[in-house]
């Protein structure tokens, strides 16, 4: 067995690699979106694909998101596996009807005859100093739409593995790419990418005994940092990275919470009506008698995403997470 030296790569590079490998492996895989061809996408995730596979495989579309997703539906109906890029989270909204009324429902309304194996890549979230409409966290909308899978990577390796899994899936997948992790680097072996796991498994990123931080995507590194900082306060925090919001891995999450007895859900999406409500509710339903305290939520405020100069106050940071951990009724222990 030869060992290959691990090389650092960014999440954006891993995503590019996943697209490239998927296109090479299956001629049915087509990439389409705004500026994905010659430019390689505004985040350069599709860089080189048009050159390597031709413009018919990686296509610059007219500027119309409903049209992009709608034509992708038609392409999937004919047996292709389209991978659509939305340029920014808020610019996916024009395609909402196609997503909710067709992408999510086509398999069901044709009783399985017309599955839509398509992937919608959406860069999401803030923290990159974007001006208005460039930093929305829209996962709550997609989670509330049965028929979609919703996944989001937090590491370079997962970016590759989950995107391959999304493209391989016979169901439509909303693939949420945390913008502020695009340039995060990790040692990763691009020669030997991990086998494609099916979508739907959470992973424990850090084990701990005091309480569980349940999180995903851009908030995973923040929670890991918070867990490190918490040691000083005497807390040993476990961090669960959901990776897949739909399907939801109750098993992994609940096993952790039953062990620790306390949990905080952390995400940068708004709190009210956001993913955290669902997560807290289902964990409570399943682990009620193991809980020493209510499951708390640390999330973005329920305001339109703020301008760059204020975003640090909006985003859940280490301090806010630790404050929530402190409110987990530790006195009850004594």
């Amino acid at each position, binding site marked *: 067995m030869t060992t290959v030296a691990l090389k650092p790569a960014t999440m954006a590079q891993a995503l590019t690699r996943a697209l490239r490998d998927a296109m090479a492996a299956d001629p049915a895989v087509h990439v389409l979106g705004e500026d994905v061809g010659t430019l390689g996408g505004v985040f350069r995730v599709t860089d080189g694909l048009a050159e390597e596979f031709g413009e*018919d495989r990686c296509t610059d579309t007219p500027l*119309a998101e409903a*049209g992009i997703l*709608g034509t992708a539906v*038609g392409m999937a109906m*004919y047996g292709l596996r389209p991978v659509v890029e939305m340029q920014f989270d808020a610019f996916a909204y*024009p395609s909402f009807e196609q997503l909710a009324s067709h992408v999510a429902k086509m398999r069901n309304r*044709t*009783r399985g005859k017309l*599955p839509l194996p398509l992937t919608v890549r959406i860069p999401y979230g803030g923290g990159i100093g974007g001006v208005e409409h460039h930093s929305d966290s829209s996962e709550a909308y997609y989670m509330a739409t049965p028929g979609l899978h919703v996944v989001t990577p937090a590491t370079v390796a997962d970016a590759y593995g989950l995107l391959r899994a999304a493209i391989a899936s016979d169901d439509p997948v909303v693939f949420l790419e945390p913008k502020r992790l695009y340039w995060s680097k990790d040692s990763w072996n691009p020669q030997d990418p991990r086998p494609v796991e099916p979508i739907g498994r959470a992973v424990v990123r850090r084990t701990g005994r005091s309480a569980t931080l349940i999180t995903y995507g851009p908030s995973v590194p923040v929670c890991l940092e918070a867990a490190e900082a918490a040691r000083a306060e005497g807390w040993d925090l476990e961090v669960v990275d959901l990776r897949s919001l739909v399907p939801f891995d109750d098993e992994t999450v609940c096993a952790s919470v039953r062990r620790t007895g306390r949990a905080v859900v952390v995400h940068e999406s708004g709190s009210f009506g956001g993913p955290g409500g669902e997560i807290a509710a289902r964990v409570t339903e399943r682990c009620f008698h193991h809980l020493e305290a209510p499951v708390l939520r640390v999330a973005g405020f329920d305001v339109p995403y703020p301008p760059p100069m204020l975003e640090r106050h909006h985003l859940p940071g280490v301090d806010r997470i630790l404050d929530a951990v402190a409110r987990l009724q530790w006195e009850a222990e004594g």
Partner: protein
Amino acid sequence: MTVMEQRGAYRPSPPPAWQPRTDPAPLLPDAEPYRVLGTEAAAKADPELLRRLYAHLVRGRRYNTQATALTKQGRLAVYPSSTGQEACEVAAALALQERDWLFPSYRDTLAVVARGVDPVQALTLLRGDWHTGYDPREHRTAPLSTPLATQLPHAVGLAHAARLKGDDVVALAMVGDGGTSEGDFHEALNFAAVWQAPVVFLVQNNGFAISVPLAKQTAAPSLAHKAVGYGMPGRLVDGNDAVAVHEVLTDAVRHARAGGGPTLVEAVTYRIDAHTNADDATRYRGDAEVEAWRDHDPVKLLERELSGRGLLDEDTVTAVREDAEAMAARLRERMNQDAALDPMDLFAHVYAEPTPQLREQQALLRAELAAEAEEGGAR
């Protein structure tokens, strides 16, 4: 170089590289809807085709009245009748080859049936049981689309995909006059033209979107005039003239198949019935208008042509009518049988594999059904 020195350099010029990309003239529709019946061109039409169209129209009309009757008997949840529009419905189906794809809207059950789908399967959605009763792949017919105009980009994507694969397939997509106001109409036509996708858009301008008349829907000279804005030809046709619609659509399909790109066809027709059985059309239009259109009925128009040219004898008429009656009787009979539905199917096709969450809900329903059955048994 100072401003003053530029003096000599003064050369007026158009913007660099400016050139119109297509000549607009051939893209514009004629001022009048194209007609064949009653004109000299009709004499050149193939009698076989005329008779075939006629039989389809008569059957189609009967299908419409039968389906409407079934709503009154509670056997259909809703039926948007295409009475008065049969020429468009039939021509759309007949203009296509078997390998082509049809993208119908919710009003186009008749086109779906004319394409060869089992009439009961075609009504499954409107019956209120399963959703799309037929297999779209088998019949190369997309599910009836209810959200207006959303099926148009699907048609474009499918046609584009077929072309990329080197397949000789054309998609024909149907939409109403109201549907042309939706953003999806615009985006679909634009993609089709930019990609030169082999797709034909058939707008049935039946004068109304539910209660809203065309004049409140658009101020355009005609809907076909929208085509030039995408760089595709627009064709205007009398939608009640089955021969004319068939010819225009067949041409457009041939053009698309030959790599000529998309066409927008506006068929001027009229919805004789109310929007659906649930609608009361007297609230928004007068009898006189409807009567004028009854005289321009697609079945009558073709009948007159055939009779005028001595192509129709009483025997043929009787045979065609009997065939239509038999179809209606079979439909009535089959629709009177209750559909057998399994509530557990609610979960069967949401995903390829149900998620763990759905499995929990499945178990809940299974338990409820078992309890119900037990209660029912105990009684």
